[in-house]
């Protein structure tokens, strides 16, 4: 392993990579800080721009945007009571009251240190745990892969946003879209006699339509009221003292642990991790009464957890090929675009590259500390850019990016059609994330199911006679049903209380 890590350093240690990591992190923080724009959007927009880079450089750019997006969300959460990204939502609880009490600089510093510690630990976990899990999963056959992909799809119930039926429809629609084109048996499906559809719809075009161009259409009537931030006033405030940081060390350690564990569970993510970490920090704190009134410990709890979830969320993706959340699903698409198929073979076949990417991920988290310290004034200013100025840039990048996939205007039409579908889905409260899961996991489910059936002479016994596939199918059932049961109990309780 250490020999491969040595080789990976050669690929990583270039001036180009260093600059790209810094630039992408910078843009990620800005996008994450702008309310309504997430790291996911940044990754989608920049994905076509990475085509000209090597896989390592390209993925470092996307990881910089991913990490920056999560941290950036905390800046506006603290300063204007609006989280830039969902993962920063819990930071509002104590971050904004702290800013109101004249402790904005301390809260921003605390968010930065906690984010950096959480992120670095998470990246180290990713570096050392992933190869071990990958080694185990090398023994997997098609039936295991089918079960794992099916398990990946089961998180639909957690990301359906309250209406499971709509989530299932969205997920099924995603798999149907992934069926477009010529399948493994040489049969053309849903091509409607259009030769351009024979090779299917490229994932990048679908991502651009579903998450980037759709945002421009959805935000047509967006109100442009911007809360102004007095960055000079913040500059004059007191810095975070070392003693204050040390007082929160237990909270940061606990938050980092919670974030690491929650992040590795598919279907969860940084937002859930930060809320759990906050409630646990409050439970064990001596200053319980100060929580919600601008307590810096509260900021440390949420920020350490949401950044700690970023690295471990990539463990199931890199080792098993299961994206833990929508952002990881986009990263999975990005890996595939760069010729790297997520799964256990990634570590054996493309070891130096993947280790270079993981080490780069650790470095990005450290660079975040320097950028946060030096450029915070600039970030606060840029986070208030009007959406009116961003929408045209997003649209132009989407259209140029879709064209760049295969130098054809036909893909621009496809991106627009998908964006219109996403607009309709948004207006009908149908979640888009399950569709993305379907798009990414659909081909894996079908191909592995077909292979399993061929091996077992068309009997289903292969799925329950092999222990690993059986375990994952049971896990899929549990993962699918748990949120449903929880929601039903919650509804019953609510009805009981009302009566």
């Amino acid at each position, binding site marked *: 392993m250490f020999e491969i890590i040595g080789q990976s350093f050669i690929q990583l240690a270039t001036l180009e990579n260093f600059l790209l990591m810094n630039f992408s992190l910078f843009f990620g923080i800005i996008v994450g800080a702008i309310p309504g724009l997430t790291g996911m959007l940044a990754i989608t927009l920049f994905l076509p721009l990475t085509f000209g880079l090597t896989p390592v450089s390209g993925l470092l750019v996307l990881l910089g945007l991913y990490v920056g997006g999560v941290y950036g969300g905390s800046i506006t959460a603290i300063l204007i009571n609006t989280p830039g990204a969902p993962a920063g939502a819990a930071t509002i609880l104590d971050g904004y009251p702290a800013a109101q009490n004249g402790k904005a600089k301390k809260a921003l510093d605390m968010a930065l240190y906690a984010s950096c510690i959480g992120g670095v630990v998470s990246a180290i976990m990713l570096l050392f745990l992933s190869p071990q899990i990958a080694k185990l999963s090398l023994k997997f056959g098609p039936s295991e892969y089918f079960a794992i992909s099916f398990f990946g799809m089961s998180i639909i119930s957690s990301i359906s946003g309250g209406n499971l039926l709509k989530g299932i429809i969205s997920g099924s629609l995603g798999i149907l879209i992934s069926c477009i084109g010529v399948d493994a048996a040489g049969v053309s499906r849903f091509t409607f006699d259009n030769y351009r559809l024979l090779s299917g719809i490229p994932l990048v075009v679908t991502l651009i339509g579903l998450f980037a161009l759709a945002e421009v259409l959805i935000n047509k009537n967006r109100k442009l009221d911007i809360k102004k931030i007095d960055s000079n006033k913040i500059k004059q405030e007191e810095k975070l003292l070392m003693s204050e940081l040390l007082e929160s060390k237990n909270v940061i350690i606990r938050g980092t642990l919670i974030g690491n564990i929650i992040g590795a569970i598919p279907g969860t993510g940084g937002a859930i991790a930060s809320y759990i970490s906050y409630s646990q920090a409050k439970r064990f704190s001596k200053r319980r009464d100060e929580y919600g009134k601008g307590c810096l410990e509260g900021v440390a709890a949420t920020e350490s957890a949401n950044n700690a979830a970023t690295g471990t969320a990539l463990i199931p993706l890199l080792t098993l090929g299961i994206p833990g959340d929508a952002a990881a699903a986009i990263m999975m698409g990005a890996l595939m675009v760069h010729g790297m198929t997520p799964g256990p073979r990634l570590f054996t076949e493309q070891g130096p590259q993947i280790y270079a990417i993981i080490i780069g991920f650790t470095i990005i988290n450290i660079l975040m500390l320097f950028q946060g310290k030096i450029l915070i004034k600039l970030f606060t200013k840029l986070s208030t850019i009007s959406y009116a100025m961003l*929408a045209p840039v997003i649209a132009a990048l989407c259209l140029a990016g879709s064209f760049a996939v295969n130098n054809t205007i036909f893909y621009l039409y496809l991106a627009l059609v998908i964006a219109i579908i996403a607009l309709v889905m948004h207006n009908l409260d149908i979640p888009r994330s399950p569709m993305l899961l379907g798009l990414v996991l659909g081909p894996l489910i079908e191909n592995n199911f077909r292979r399993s059936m061929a091996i077992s002479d068309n009997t289903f016994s292969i799925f329950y006679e092999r222990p690993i596939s059986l375990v994952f199918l049971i896990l899929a059932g549990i993962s699918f049903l748990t949120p449903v049961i929880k929601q039903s109990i919650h509804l019953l309780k609510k009805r009981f209380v009302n009566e």
Partner: protein
Amino acid sequence: MINRQAILNRILNKESLSGIIGSTLSLYLLINLDKIIEIGSITTFSSQSLPKVLLWIILSCSLILILQGIINSKHIETTIDRAVVKKGLGYILYCGVFYLYLILLPIIGFMISTCMLTSAILINYKQKKWLNYMIIFSIIIIINFLFKFFLYVYLPSSTLWGGM
């Protein structure tokens, strides 16, 4: 006599509408599946199998959504007033602008057509400062050069005066 508004309430809520769209789409595809996916022989698991299963899932969920919409509509106040219609028409017009852009793109090229599209977006947000328009036009020029020299992707140029 049944109140017209009551019937509208039952049909025009998000659950029912999702169900109606989902069931119509899935039924159409299920009926025409043999034409859409032509398979030579029927096997246990053919190229039609997965789409067929998915379409049945969508159809079943859509029908339940329609029922949900009708049952829950008693608690939802749905009014279709001018504002809702205006909003809907606004979205159609906005999408139409993008469609028009795609038609114009091969004729007048990426730079000019994208400048026109982004101007339309800025007008939508009631931007009056000419400087904002200039900033966006400059970014479009940068994007064009970025794709040309960094990715070696030549974005569509005009067929009218060959170049831009």
